[in-house]
């Protein structure tokens, strides 16, 4: 189905998932403003918000099903398989985080159901960021996401750590968006356009110019911050630790995924002519990020911090796939993000259930003997660790495989080796978690007695863990989708660019 994006009706149709989710968020906001006093109210709003994600997924599915394509140039929003794939994943993240937050918030004494509204609006921002075909939409989506996540990070106002995390994230985030904005301005100056494809057309037609180069650099800075690549990563561990755990999951999975989707789109559509320029930058960023992320993770005692550094390292792996600048690389980004996101959500879900109200962050040594007390939780977390490690038979392995294969197909050997070395180092911190849970006795009798795992969260985590295992040996559906349907970035942009 061809959609004319220059007409308001067409634009509304193209943005249906976002509009549905925003509309539902307004409904939920109305409900939340009437019912926001008790824990029951909070739970009620939580359930209500999940309906919104389901509706938005259905809208996305409809767009994908009718095969919506832009009539001519994609204006403001993209209409391609990549967008539908990213939307599905992002909506899924939002829904899963809402499920994980359900009852968790009340247990931590956070009774303010606006939380779910902000979560939905942040998801809208992520979708706009990932699906934007225009720098303006992209910037506004990014800001919408960021502002909502700043608030969510500092949401647990009773804890100083949460407020501090919010402030740190906010200050550095605003600082970074200054750079991003400068980059957009310079690209606008160099090309006269905000539209990604038109920028790509203009940049491909000329030799690299100073203004465009500077714009590219500043743009990369902005995204490197969002994906937490070294040396723009320093905020991540602090913020991940301080934020409420479901929000941490949201940041580690959603924000990172959305930023990578957007970066993949920008590099593919706007900068195909500048490959020689951004490739070395991405390579260096990837190498440094992999090494620093993995090494520093070794020294961590807190689970959340460890996962934060591990998330940094995973951003490094993903940069390798972007480096490849090929359909295979884009497919690898999609597949790896799916694997990473599912695993991260499950790991943080289990972690959230272990946390006690008001207690300090969970240390790795706190997990000792978890297997004896809570075998399923321990097994689930073990599967997550193995998947993050890239153990064959888990979805993580499939993701790593494609990730490493992408630059190899381009004839690059060093980056895959670095990725594998990094993955080798990562045994040093993933393994002790499994070790602590399965091979160490329980420290005290009272340990693990306070674990509260609400049924919906349990189901969500169980689905994730099963998905990791099943997709590890039977990933065909996802792979087919990623390699055939979703890799349409270049395919849609190329005819316009080469004309």
């Amino acid at each position, binding site marked *: 189905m061809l959609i004319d994006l220059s007409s308001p009706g067409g634009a509304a149709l193209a943005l249906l998932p976002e509009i549905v989710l925003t509309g539902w968020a307004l409904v939920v906001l109305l409900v939340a403003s009437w019912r926001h006093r008790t824990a029951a109210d909070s739970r009620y709003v939580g359930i209500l918000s999940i309906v919104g994600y389901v509706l938005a997924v259905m809208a996305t599915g409809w767009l994908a099903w009718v095969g919506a394509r832009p009539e001519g140039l994609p204006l403001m929003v993209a209409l391609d398989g990549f967008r539908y794939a990213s939307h599905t994943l992002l909506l899924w993240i939002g829904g899963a985080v809402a499920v994980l937050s359900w009852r968790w918030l009340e247990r931590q004494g956070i009774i303010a159901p606006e939380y779910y509204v902000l979560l939905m609006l942040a998801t809208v921002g992520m979708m706009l960021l990932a699906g934007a075909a*225009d720098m303006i939409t992209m910037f506004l989506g990014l800001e919408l996401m960021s502002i909502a996540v700043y608030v969510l990070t500092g949401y647990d106002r009773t804890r100083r750590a949460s407020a501090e995390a919010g402030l740190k994230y906010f200050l550095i985030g605003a600082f970074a968006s200054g750079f991003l904005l400068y980059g957009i301005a310079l690209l606008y100056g160099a090309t006269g356009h905000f539209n990604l494809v038109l920028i790509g057309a203009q940049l491909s037609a000329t030799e690299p110019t*100073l203004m465009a180069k500077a714009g590219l650099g500043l743009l990369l800075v902005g995204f490197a911050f969002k994906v937490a690549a070294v040396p723009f990563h320093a905020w991540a561990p602090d913020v991940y630790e301080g934020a409420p755990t479901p929000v941490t999951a949201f940041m580690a999975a959603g924000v990172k995924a959305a930023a990578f989707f957007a970066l993949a789109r920008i590099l593919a559509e706007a900068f195909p002519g500048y490959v020689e320029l951004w490739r070395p930058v991405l390579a260096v960023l990837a190498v440094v990020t992999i090494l620093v992320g993995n090494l520093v993770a070794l020294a961590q005692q807190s689970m959340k911090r460890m996962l934060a550094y591990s998330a940094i390292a995973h951003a490094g792996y993903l940069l390798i796939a972007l480096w490849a600048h090929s359909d295979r690389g884009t497919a690898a980004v999609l597949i790896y993000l799916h694997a990473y996101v599912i695993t991260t959500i499950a790991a943080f879900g289990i972690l959230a259930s272990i946390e006690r109200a008001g207690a300090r962050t969970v240390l790795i040594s706190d997990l000792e003997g978890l297997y004896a007390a809570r075998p399923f939780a321990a097994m689930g977390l073990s599967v997550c660790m193995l998947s993050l490690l890239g153990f064959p038979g888990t979805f993580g392995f499939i993701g790593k495989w494609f990730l490493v294969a992408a630059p190899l197909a381009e004839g690059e050997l060093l980056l895959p080796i670095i990725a594998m070395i990094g993955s080798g180092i990562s045994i040093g911190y993933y393994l002790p978690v499994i070790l602590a849970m399965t091979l160490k006795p329980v420290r005290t009798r009272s340990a693990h007695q306070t674990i509260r795992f609400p049924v919906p969260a349990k189901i969500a985590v169980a689905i994730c863990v099963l998905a990791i295992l099943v997709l590890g040996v039977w990933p065909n559906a996802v792979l087919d989708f990623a390699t055939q349907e979703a890799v349409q970035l270049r395919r849609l942009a190329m005819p316009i660019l080469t004309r």
Partner: protein
Amino acid sequence: MDLVTPVFWVFAGWSVVSAVLCITRRNPISSALWLVSTMFALAGIYVLLDAQFIAAVQVIVYAGAIMVLFLFVIMLLNVGDAPREWRRWPVGLLGVGLAAVLGAQLMMLGGYGRQRLADEFSTQPAPVNPALVFPEGMASAAAVAERGVVGAVAEPLFTAYLIPFEITSVLLLTAVIGAVVLAKKKL
């Protein structure tokens, strides 16, 4: 005789001096006021650059509303002069050095004139009809002459940029919800 250039340099000097004072004053209130001063200078420059509407908005919204919010919060928190406002020397010096290098890199952009931009611009036939994107190709001055100061900006804002415009409404809503949730004394 061209009056624009000397006036521009006056405003430029004003804005730079205000900005320097903004980042060096120890009292946050002075800093905020010097920032307002910078914004006024910029508004003046906007007028010179054929962006009269933006200049007005800059004064009303930015200098007027946003900075008042800042002042309000500074007064509310009542944080006076910090005993040692500056960062310690090694870090501070490193910051100055880094900023200087960054500034030198960005200053290279100052070499751009209209001619250079036009030279670097691709003269290839545009791949698609620009009218599909937004009615541009019409420079600021011409647009103002044709549609008036407000109309020049309003036209594209409500046609080509309708989607971003609607997104900003969601953005502001989010900010309001967030600010209320965070700042309320009791939830």
